[in-house]
């Protein structure tokens, strides 16, 4: 067994030293009848080559994004990740290190977390950011809980433009923790009036920016309405590249900003692992969930970094913790930070501009197909398409022609007839002119 250093003679010598004749004597506390005699009913050990073949067969049954014209988004986006990002995150010292509980020998992890926190705070125009959450959706739920703690209220107003699966995560956690959710109806054209739904019981308003249908709206009036009633504004961003082109939520009155950071540095990987970004105002930092890295000095006065304000966390406060989160998304945060460092301000803005331009081009092309319309007045790199008939069937037909045309809204909101003819379509820097032309042509054929 290539992974197990102990050899038979080692085991014999060690058992003798321990003073037992068989390893099962060390399992004496296990009730005799419960100790397994037979091996589990699973295949025996295999060499690398056999394992590669077996998993290769499974992988071959999937269609990778890069192999086709690809326009699927809705909370996970296909972007190009520079080769050096994946190389660096596979450095042993990053990949096989643990949470930096011993700061003297984990300054590498701590310094990149500090850089990550700073990047996230600046990108969102907030004061502070944590060292990451599991992903955007769990971050959104944590933001709602945090708002409840701050305001000592227990009702969240959820915009109809929030990703339905994010809304489901919030609803699930709220239901079982005794909090209320006022979820507005799905709102493909950003027509809802949130202000009137905020009352004295409301702890926060949760809006997505751009929303799940792609619409972009000024958050300032919503922030003002929330603040007027003593509620907080939670802004959710599922496509973080958008903040390279759009005004930051922190500049429009957001109190908590959560985002899915996958687009920067992290592959699609069928939905995970991703990385949740979580930022807030300085005054709320002690109510924040998750780990925080802070700057300090060592005994020789040299700058160094440590995990700090950990009294908020489960391992100290136990049942009084702000959250039960323990493991986060360290390595995905590293990928985010490295990619963001490679981009820099200049690269990020350029990347965002390309995404927007490609989406504009695609929207124009698709709107030119007979019977098809683009719902959005505003969008960044994703918009909502109305097609004649059943959107899910159209997507399947496009897939049969080798085009991944987007996400039928019915996949997220089944049974809602009002959205059954809508498709979420995303365009990024990976799409070529040919890809977009192929999409328009294929759409024309299937309709």
């Amino acid at each position: 067994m290539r992974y197990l250093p102990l050899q038979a003679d080692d085991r014999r010598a060690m058992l003798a030293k321990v003073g037992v004749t068989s390893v099962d004597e060390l399992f004496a506390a296990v009730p005799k009848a419960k100790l397994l005699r037979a091996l589990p009913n699973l295949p025996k050990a295999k060499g690398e080559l056999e394992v590669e073949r077996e998993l290769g067969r499974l992988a071959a049954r999937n269609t990778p994004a890069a192999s086709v014209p690809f326009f699927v988004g809705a909370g996970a986006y296909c972007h190009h990740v520079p080769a050096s990002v994946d190389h660096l995150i596979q450095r042993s010292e990053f990949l096989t290190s643990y949470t930096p509980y011993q700061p003297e020998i984990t300054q590498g992890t701590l310094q990149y977390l500090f850089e990550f926190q700073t990047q996230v705070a600046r990108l969102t125009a907030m004061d502070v950011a944590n060292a990451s959450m599991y992903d955007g959706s769990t971050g959104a739920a944590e933001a709602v809980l945090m708002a409840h703690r701050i305001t000592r209220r227990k009702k969240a107003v959820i915009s109809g433009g929030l990703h339905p699966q994010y809304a489901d995560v919030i609803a699930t956690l709220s239901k079982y923790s005794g909090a209320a959710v006022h979820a507005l109806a799905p709102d493909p054209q950003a027509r809802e009036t949130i202000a009137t739904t905020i009352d004295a019981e409301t702890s926060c308003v949760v809006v997505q920016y751009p929303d799940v249908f792609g619409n972009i709206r000024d958050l300032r009036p919503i922030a003002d309405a929330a603040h007027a009633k003593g509620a907080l504004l939670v802004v959710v961003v599922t496509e973080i590249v958008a903040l390279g082109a759009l005004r930051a939520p922190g500049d429009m009155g957001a109190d908590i900003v959560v985002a899915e950071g996958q687009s920067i540095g992290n592959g699609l990987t069928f939905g995970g692992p991703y990385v949740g970004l979580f930022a807030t105002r300085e005054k709320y930092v002690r109510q924040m969930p998750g780990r925080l890295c802070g700057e300090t000095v060592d005994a020789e006065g040299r700058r160094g970094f440590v995990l700090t304000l950990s009294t908020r966390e489960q391992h100290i406060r136990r049942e009084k913790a702000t959250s039960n989160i323990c493991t986060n998304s360290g390595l995905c945060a590293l990928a985010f930070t490295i990619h963001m460092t490679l981009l820099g301000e200049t690269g990020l803005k350029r990347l965002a501009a390309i995404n927007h331009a490609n989406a504009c081009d695609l929207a124009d092309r698709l709107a030119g197909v007979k019977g098809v319309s683009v719902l959005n007045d505003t969008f960044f790199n994703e918009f909502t398409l109305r097609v004649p008939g059943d959107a899910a069937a159209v997507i399947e037909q496009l897939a049969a022609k080798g085009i991944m045309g987007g996400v039928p809204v019915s996949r997220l909101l089944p049974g809602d007839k009002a959205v059954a003819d809508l498709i979420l379509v995303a365009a990024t820097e990976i799409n070529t002119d040919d890809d977009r032309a192929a999409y328009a042509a294929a759409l024309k054929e299937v309709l």
Partner: protein
Amino acid sequence: MAIKFTRDHEWVSVDGDIATVGITSHAQSALGDVVFVEVPEIGRMLKQKDAAAVVESVKAASEVYAPISGEVVAANADLAGTPALVNEDAEGKAWFFKLKIANKAQLDGLMDKAAYDAFVKESA
């Protein structure tokens, strides 16, 4: 009037119908470097044993309980900016909050200095 102590390591000093509350010198030394203090809002009504304040060191967070019932009439604003005060002068400048006493009889249930010192020694 003399200072009284609780088994939860708070001290209370009474002046008329106002009680000043803090944590004991023994408590601060057990906690280590205090890095954060949260005091109650003025006007809050506290019942005896209610969690009234929070004191945190780097590796421990503790609730400070109301030793007796009463309304919060003052809170020590200095502690937010200078939590180290708790380590420097726990039973003096680092008082946490003042209560308008609701029930003076509750004071009788608390320990005096000698009894508290014996209690600390015993539990060590």
